[in-house]
């Protein structure tokens, strides 16, 4: 099918397999070398890839700036953590169960707020995040402000803490690959075309026969599933979950920054953005001269990207390396 599709443009370009292969090879490094600190670093990077790729579906493709997107990460984390602790189910089952609250919120709350446009939608997502966080801080069945934490013996069920951490890592990598694949498929589907039409002109989209309400909710759900799975893996590995770390507004904005840094509305953008962001962060934090000014430097760089390189790193690469144009989507 790909070949026919691209038949209109020329040669088929195996962009997705190449991107997935690169991510998979990098993700496999710590497993092959057995380097746990590399594993920890890459876990974080894959998490950022997942969050940014997901938020890009609703923000990049559909044009709805979701400020509180991390709410799905937190809900997935809480759902999974609670399932493991109270229902005593295996992590994989719990991760699947954690998707339920995220999807419910995406459908019910998302369905309502997606009627809003522009800044109104962005502010509403912020409100949802803060409301959820405040609620969970008071919701005693989920531990309230203290949150939930595992007894260390839980990890024995997974062959010890180390192999549990490895399992969480592999799971995280698969979620990231899944998110990238989903993003690609959406981008190249009729559904994706509908999303981009809505982004460009919602009123025109309706006249053209697109049902914006249903289409947007579907996009919101897709963009909620992967963060939820990532939340399950993250908090399983962490061993603790509390409202502050589950519903962190900064992380929400971080993923939008990554999207813009890499190239909004592209498949590869969030991946490249996450890698660049993590590299930069690591560089700033380990450099003693810059460490104390790391936030300032990050702010200046973000401003430069926003003001002067609006198409992000993907755009920069495309304009510098003409041969990459066909390859980098």
């Amino acid at each position: 099918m790909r070949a026919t599709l691209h038949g209109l443009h020329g040669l088929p370009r195996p962009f997705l397999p190449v991107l997935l292969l690169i991510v998979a090879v990098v993700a496999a490094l710590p497993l092959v070398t057995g380097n746990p600190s590399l594993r920890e670093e890459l876990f974080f990077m894959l998490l950022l890839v997942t969050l940014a790729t997901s938020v890009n579906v609703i923000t990049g493709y559909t044009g709805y700036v979701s400020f509180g997107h991390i709410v799905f990460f937190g809900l997935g984390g809480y759902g999974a953590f609670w399932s493991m602790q109270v229902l005593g189910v295996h992590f994989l089952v719990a991760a699947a169960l954690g998707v339920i609250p995220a999807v419910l919120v995406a459908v019910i709350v998302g369905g309502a707020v997606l009627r809003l446009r522009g800044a109104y939608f962005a502010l509403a997502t912020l409100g949802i995040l803060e409301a959820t966080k405040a609620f969970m801080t008071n919701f005693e069945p989920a531990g309230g402000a203290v949150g939930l934490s595992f007894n260390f013996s839980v990890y024995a069920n997974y062959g010890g803490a180390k192999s549990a951490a490895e399992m969480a890592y592999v799971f995280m990598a698969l979620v990231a690959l899944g998110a990238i694949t989903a993003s690609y498929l959406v981008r190249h589907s009729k559904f994706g075309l509908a999303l981009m039409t809505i982004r460009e002109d919602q009123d025109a989209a309706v006249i053209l026969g697109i049902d914006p309400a249903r289409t947007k909710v579907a996009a919101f759900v897709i963009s909620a599933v992967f963060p939820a799975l990532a939340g399950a893996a993250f908090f399983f590995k962490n061993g603790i979950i509390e409202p502050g770390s589950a519903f962190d507004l900064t992380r929400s904005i971080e993923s939008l920054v990554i999207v813009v840094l890499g190239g909004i509305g592209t498949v590869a953008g969030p991946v490249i953005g996450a890698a660049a962001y993590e590299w930069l962060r690591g560089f700033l934090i380990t450099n003693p001269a810059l460490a104390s000014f790391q936030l300032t430097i990050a702010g200046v760089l973000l401003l430069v990207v926003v003001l002067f390189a609006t198409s992000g790193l993907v755009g920069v690469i495309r304009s510098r390396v003409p041969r990459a144009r066909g390859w980098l989507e």
Partner: protein
Amino acid sequence: MNLGALLPSAIDGLLLGCVYGLAAMGLTLIFGVTRVVNLAHGPVIAMGMFVVLAVASGAGLNPYIGVLLAAVVGLAAGVVIYVVAVDRVINAPELTTLLATFAVNLIIIGTATTLLTTSPRAVDVDLGALRAGNVTVMGTHVVAVVIAVAAAGALYAFLFRTRLGKSVRAVAADRAAAELMGINSRRMLALAFGLGTALAMTAGALLATMFSFNVLSGGTYETKSFVIVVLGGLGNPTGALIGGLVIGLLEGVTAVVIPVSWVPVIEYAVFVLILLVRPRGLLGSRQ
């Protein structure tokens, strides 16, 4: 449930609500004129606090001189923020301006954290208190309300009575039409950003005379400002002031009947609901 706290809490809430309203006015003025949701609002409020600290503890002067200075510094800072970070992307999609102002947020927070640390600070202002029965009203609160109302009044006089103010309003109403009338819209946008920032910093300065704070304290007031601004109608300064009173009252009164930690849940739920039911705000016109 003890309702004895109802009256004092309602009064406290209304007084503080005036200052919340002032901060929110800054945010809503900027949005109304430039269509930019200013994510540097929180750090700007915190900057206002530190101006008072510098004047009172640093220079040993009357803290209220600091409040005045905060307004002046705010005007200048706002214009600088507009010129450096916003002007170039003023017509871009909202994500771009959101991230541009967020970058300013990072720059201010990063620099301030390094230079000033996140240690808690306090400016000791003792103006006594008015007491009647179980109601205690702190002098600092009363003065803050007076200043907040005066600042709001000054803004209105400027917007409705002066030529410059009318130009700002024209740009807010229709940028293209205003330009046809010969108004330099960029200058008005920069001015609006300056005024908005001045209001936010004044509010921060007043908060510093009442509560302890640190570099990161603006965050709480920023999210509160969002709630208020939506309540009063995005872009509507009167709405923001009234919204501030409503939120102040809501915080004070609901805390009497439910545990205080549930107040934010109510606050944000109301926020989302209002967006859904009346996105133009309770005071705004219907779509």
